């Protein structure tokens, strides 16, 4: 399988990339290419110009700015896994990256590409929502910073406008008492999630003071299970309350039936992934169960 015809441009600066993006209708940015190239082979995508941003050094790497972690959009999954800084200040991202695709693909697939692509099966969108991350977006008009919550609008549909690219991701660093959990059900290595859940929380005594529950691949795009969050917020998470929250997750799901399961199965698995992620989050937050 070979993609349709296009003109290839390798660029070394964000300005060059934006200029080309504006100059050509149907131009696409190529990051790791492991979603875009397969789609082009199948003619689901037929850009006339491909702008390769792999050669832009400023889009790579992870730095710490006070309590904020700045992750270059072109940082790949293996770089997330190997990051000592993330391991220390946001270990959730390391755990998530380990479960994405396989070793070869993790050398190519980037966090920014995973976010910008808008596939409901991608893992970073829900994780970004659970982390209250922000995306730094560049265009020829300048820079804007948008929250992850509200960015994902539908399948292959995000808040990214024509002529824009994501240059970096800002993630609030965890404090010592941040609890987190990520559980992903997949049939085999390299598969997208049948369902996945991310939980980030903090406790005040035995009460939930802050909670984010975000779901992957059980709706048209990543989403927060806000009803479930409300059930737990301000309360001590008893078994009965956790069960109530799990049912709220289940009814919030709108999965698509495919080879990995029907709607009912996927919603039930989403609830189970949430139970497990919540369990891990309570443990890492130091809850005395």
């Amino acid at each position, binding site marked *: *399988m*070979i*993609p*349709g*015809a*296009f*003109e*290839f441009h*390798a660029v070394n600066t964000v300005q060059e990339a934006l200029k080309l993006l504006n100059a050509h209708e149907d131009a696409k940015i190529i990051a790791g*290419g*492991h979603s875009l*190239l*397969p789609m082009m*082979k199948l003619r689901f995508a037929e850009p006339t110009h*491909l702008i*390769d941003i*792999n050669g832009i050094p400023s889009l790579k790497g992870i730095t710490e700015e006070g309590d904020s972690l700045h992750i270059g959009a072109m940082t790949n999954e293996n770089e997330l896994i190997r990051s000592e800084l993330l391991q220390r200040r946001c270990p959730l991202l390391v755990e998530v990256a380990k479960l994405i*695709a*396989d*070793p*070869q*693909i993790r*050398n*190519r697939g980037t966090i920014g590409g995973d976010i910008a692509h808008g596939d409901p099966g991608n893992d970073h969108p829900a994780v970004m929502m659970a982390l209250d991350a922000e995306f730094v977006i560049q265009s020829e008009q300048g820079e804007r910073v948008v929250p992850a919550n509200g960015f994902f609008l539908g399948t292959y549909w995000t808040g990214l406008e024509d002529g824009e690219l994501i240059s970096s991701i800002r993630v609030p660093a965890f404090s010592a008492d941040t609890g987190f959990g990520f559980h992903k059900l997949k049939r085999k*290595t*390299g598969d997208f999630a049948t369902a996945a859940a991310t939980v980030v929380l903090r406790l005040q005594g035995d009460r939930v003071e802050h909670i984010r529950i975000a779901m992957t691949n059980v709706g048209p795009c990543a989403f927060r299970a806000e009803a479930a969050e409300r059930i737990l917020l301000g309360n001590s998470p008893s078994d009965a309350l956790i069960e109530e929250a799990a049912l709220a997750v289940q009814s919030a799901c709108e999965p698509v039936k495919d080879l990995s399961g029907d709607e009912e199965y996927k919603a039930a698995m989403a609830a189970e992934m949430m139970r497990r992620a919540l369990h891990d989050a309570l443990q890492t937050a130091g809850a005395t169960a």
Partner: protein
Amino acid sequence: MSKRAISFNLNGESVDAMVEDRELLVHVLREQLNKTGTHIGCETSHCGVCTVDLDGESVKSCTILAVQVAGRSVMSVEGLKDQSGLHAVQQAFIDEHGLQCGFCTTGMLMRAYRFLKENPDPSEEEIRWGMSGNLCRCTGYQNIIKAVQSAAKKLKNVEQTA
């Protein structure tokens, strides 16, 4: 359709090719440079049979454009052996019967080669995780794992005696 000239390092030698922008690395390796050891399997980056080294990292050459490797270093399975003979991973796949039909083998060899550089002393579980991007449809996984274990041992002995 217009073509452009690219040069890159393949198995230690500089090579030139005329490629269309849309041509994939695996096609250029096989059809222009006659390095047919790199196989084409699923063509959708799932199976790993087209695995090569790009600047010292394993990648799937069905999902990299040839134009993207201009100026860079690629190693294919043909680059594994040297004057003294087969590489330790190749010999280990023979010794441990790490192949049945052999179709996935070249990808397995290239991934095992790079994986053992990343992790020279892996546990069995780490091998399974490290090799998880390569599929064997004969399902001969047990012997593939044994072959990687055997190669790790051999490479460690070579290092110790060197």
